[in-house]
């Protein structure tokens, strides 16, 4: 008897939420797969934003200094949320799981694979963080291959001071919007770009960047893993290259 087609669990990256997969899920379901996404803790419906974010025009100094109400969100919470969804999906459908993470979602995919390797058919990183054992995501951000990254130039507060990677998706500053578009979705239409920004939050918890990857060859290492490189990824373009 043929084994059932795997179910996809799709994990989003920083500032966005599970709706980022809305065009991909129907394409997977059309081929007989189950595909589910979620809002990670601190994202989507559970995202908390600083008071200063609501005030327009933006008080730049207040926005740069107000502590993040999202700062306490931990990688452990996010890992637990995805483990729960994967286990629930496996139980309900009887299908093995293909776990997919995009961008910062790679941190969660990695931790989940270490936690429940036997439930996973494979893990997939899409332009995502993939750490060596013991490495923190902050080490990757500061890696030589990320020199000149556009993402850091979008930050409007010191992550260590406010506890978050803080950007302003509601900005009406043309230069800042162009920077965000170059960093994330230069190949999207203006409508899709605007729609993405409308769904983004401003504070990504900074603490997840300082959690060492606790992975082993015996667990994480035996789950087949795939990496999808996005060749026009603006995260790796320098500001000069986009000007």
């Amino acid at each position, binding site marked *: 008897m043929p084994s059932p087609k795997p179910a996809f669990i799709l994990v989003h990256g920083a500032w966005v939420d599970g709706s980022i997969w809305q065009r991909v899920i129907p394409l997977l379901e059309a081929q007989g797969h189950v595909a589910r996404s979620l809002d990670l803790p601190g994202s989507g419906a559970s995202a908390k934003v600083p008071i200063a974010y609501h005030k327009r025009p933006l008080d730049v100094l207040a926005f740069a200094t107000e502590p993040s109400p999202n700062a306490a969100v931990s990688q452990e919470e996010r890992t637990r949320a995805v483990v729960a969804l994967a286990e629930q999906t496996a139980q309900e459908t009887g299908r093995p799981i293909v776990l997919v993470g995009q961008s910062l979602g790679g941190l969660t995919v990695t931790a989940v694979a270490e936690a429940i390797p036997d439930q996973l058919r494979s893990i997939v990183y899409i332009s995502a963080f993939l750490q060596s054992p013991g490495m923190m995501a902050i080490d990757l951000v500061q890696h030589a291959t990320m020199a000149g990254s556009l993402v850091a130039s979008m930050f409007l507060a010191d992550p260590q001071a406010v506890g978050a990677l803080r950007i302003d998706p509601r900005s009406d500053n043309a230069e800042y919007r162009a920077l965000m578009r170059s960093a994330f979705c230069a190949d*999207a239409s203006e409508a899709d770009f605007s729609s993405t920004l409308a769904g983004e939050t401003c504070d990504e918890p900074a603490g997840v960047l300082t959690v060492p990857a606790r992975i082993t060859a015996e667990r994480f290492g035996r789950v087949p893993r795939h990496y999808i*490189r996005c060749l026009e*990824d603006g995260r790796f373009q320098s500001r000069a290259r986009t000007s």
Partner: protein
Amino acid sequence: MIAAVDSALGSQTHTHTLPASHFPFYSYSKPLAEILLAIAARNGANGQYRR
């Protein structure tokens, strides 16, 4: 970085490419789905395609 992970774990990461931005969900949603479907069709740690 992928090579460093592979070396540390003693197993290989299979790589794929898309001519897309950081968010391939818009202009490349179909090619992205096709890669994911091909990955799902693989079976086992050595990554052979399921018959």
